[in-house]
């Protein structure tokens, strides 16, 4: 009984907690931004805009309904496994202890820094480190076949809705949780070690100031059918919703582009940036012949396990095989050597 209550509470929390992406206020602001975009940029009437935003073909599509299912199922799975996962505190403590052993960096080296600077620096660093680690892990998700097998679940969405953010394989959820724990653990331990007890976070409604701003300015439109584009110069810094839509496009020229979450800087730096285009005629999904068949729970939960394992096995076999070749080569070398 308590378990069901926890599921219920966690589900409600996603919509009522300002630290979460689909907090109702953020959803509402995304709708508002979408309406303004449609009215002033796309020159639609208010009624047309509303009809476009709440298009039932999008929200009741096969793709969207499978998003909702995955959302609920993952709530249950995460509730079961989260107590067993590595936490940011474990990582932070281990790193903090490690810093003590580095004798040339003294604890509290910068403890005399004015408090507002420490807090600003921590708030900013936490956001940057978190965003950068998201970029890196996302890139891996696309580059490593055994991770791509999992990440495909997210990309199998043929319609994007704010709930697509939850369209994630549970194993991928594990990877993301580790990423988050690691990013937080590094920032927290480094700051507390160097700046002492004055470290704090600037928050609005309990969320990191920058995370709050990211969400207020329409983060939910990244997964939507509203292709808002920014000015070109801004798309070097921040990823526009349209840029993320391209990331979901099946067109070859859009492959492996725009991995960034909030910041586009990482894509720019590492050569994966693609500026936005008009997204009205974009096809989303994996680009296979049977994309519409990828919305079943079997495809979303079971197949990825099998595929990921297959690639992982292949990877290790390759590793082992190459070693064997190297070993044989060295044996040959020894045979040839004068000794």
């Amino acid at each position, binding site marked *: 009984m308590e378990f069901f209550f926890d599921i219920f509470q966690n589900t409600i929390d996603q919509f009522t907690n300002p630290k979460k992406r689909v907090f109702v206020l953020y959803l509402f602001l995304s709708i508002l931004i979408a309406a303004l975009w449609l009215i002033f940029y796309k020159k639609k009437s208010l009624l047309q805009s509303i009809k476009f935003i709440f298009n039932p073909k999008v929200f009741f599509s096969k793709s969207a309904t499978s998003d909702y299912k995955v959302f609920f199922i993952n709530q249950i799975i995460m509730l079961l496994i989260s107590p067993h996962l590595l936490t940011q505190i474990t990582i*932070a403590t281990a790193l903090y*202890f490690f810093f003590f052993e580095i004798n040339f960096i003294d604890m509290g080296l910068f403890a005399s820094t004015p408090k507002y600077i420490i807090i600003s620096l921590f708030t900013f660093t936490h956001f940057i480190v978190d965003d950068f680690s998201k970029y890196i892990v996302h890139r891996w998700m696309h580059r490593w076949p055994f991770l791509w097998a999992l990440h495909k679940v997210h990309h199998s969405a043929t319609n994007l809705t704010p709930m697509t953010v939850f369209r*994630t394989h549970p194993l991928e959820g594990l990877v993301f949780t580790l990423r988050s724990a690691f990013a937080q653990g590094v920032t927290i331990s480094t700051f507390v070690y160097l700046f002492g007890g004055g470290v704090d976070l600037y928050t609005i409604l309990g969320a990191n100031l920058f995370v709050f701003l990211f969400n207020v300015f329409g983060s939910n439109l990244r997964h939507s059918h509203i292709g808002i584009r920014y000015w070109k110069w801004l798309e070097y810094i921040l990823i526009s919703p349209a840029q993320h839509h391209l990331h979901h496009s099946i067109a070859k020229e859009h492959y492996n582009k725009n991995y960034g979450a909030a910041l586009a800087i990482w894509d720019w730096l590492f050569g994966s940036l693609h500026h936005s285009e008009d997204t009205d005629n974009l096809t989303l999904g994996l680009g296979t012949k049977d994309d519409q068949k990828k919305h079943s729970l079997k495809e979303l939960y079971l197949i990825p396990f099998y595929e990921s394992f297959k690639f992982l096995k292949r990877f290790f076999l390759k590793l082992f095989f190459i070693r064997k070749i190297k070993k044989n080569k060295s044996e040959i070398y020894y045979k040839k050597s004068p000794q």
Partner: protein
Amino acid sequence: MKKLNLKTKLLTSLTCISFGLTGLANAGAHSEDVYGPFPVTLKGYSGDCTNTVSYSGQIARHVQHDSLKYLSTKGDYDEMNAYYSGSDKNKQIWAPGSKDGFPIKQTLLNDISSGKNLSGKTYKGTITAWPENMTAPEVIDFWMMKAADNPKDVSVGLNYQQLLSKFIMGAVFYNQAVDNYLDEKMGADSKPNDKPYKDGACYTGKEHSWDEAFGYWGAAAHSLLLSAEDNYNIAKKKDLAAADYNGDGVVDLKSEYVFAHAYYASSFDKGGKTSYLEDITRAFLDGRKLITSANGEKLSDAQRSELMAYVDVINENWQKVIAESVFKYAGSTYKSLVALESVGNADLAKEFDKYMKYWGELKGFSMALQVGKENIGETATKLNRMIGFGPMLLDETQITGIKGMMGSDGKYITSEYEMGKIYSMNDAKLHMLKIQKLMIDQFGVEARANDMLADMSDLASKIGTSESAEND
């Protein structure tokens, strides 16, 4: 209007009923929640005893410990030893003594119980936390000799008053209670409930064994009627009203005072995160009621297993109280180590004095943790290695051993300073943090006074969970 009236009436009558019930419950709780008196259940007893609760011997030992602690800074070995090993004379109670607004009934040890000592009840195993394979009585004797010479030895950083007090609480009270009275003496064939504890006694074997363990715990008989704060204030001699249960205007050490680990439990509980004092004292009371309910018959297997469940509660929580103390003083020692790095010459002596005190408390409690019923094995090894035999001194040297024969008044051997050596002041700080983590991981301490890693956990909870199954 009519409806409202009815509602008001209903509310009024409900309030009256609930007040009445609360009153009744309070009246009931008043006697139900006090440890004793308990009636005679022993079959065939014909004396005039009416209350079988008796633990004055334990209270005498608490007082001997408190008095020894007081005397440990006065430089007189024989006087200290008279309280540790006992004396034929009716000795004065040095502590706890009366103070303004807090008069204590007893002034002489024999007013409580005569012929008692601490040495005979001290844990006899080897103490690996101290050099030279000494037994606990030997360690205590060694410290008393050192204390008589110099109670606060700045040259090695030892505060003998703290070492003696914190270790004796473990090696006598904790050890006797959990490893003797609540262990062997709760066995089916040991001290049976259908026989007197000793010839002529009005209490049974089990009744008295249980009472003795309660006595060592140190709570007042009426502790359960009071808040943690009240209990704490009794031990601090600040609240006569809370202490004086029978209302005779004086505090009876035999039943109205809070001693030793019960006091430490109250100090943690008043923070609101834990309820050690209540949980342990309640388990003692419920266990005693269970024994009484056997009505002088041998305890059945079912009764004994029920009793052992109370023992488990007591053991686990008592160990936690000591672990909380280790946690707390590891934090204070850490703070002192940080302060010592930046303190000016004018305040150096004062800060170093604090450092010695905190380290002494840490060492004493950590040694106490090792003399319970459970062999804490690897945890003990870690604690002993990280704490050492003496605190890290300002020249980055520390005690590594003792010269001379076992138990003799030997001189300390200290490490020599080496440039670039691995063990430094920074490592000493790190050890304190690791000790705090060890207490969390091994014993699940919750009060966590002086938590030096709290900054990180506070930040982490502010940021929010790292759990995420979301694709940004």
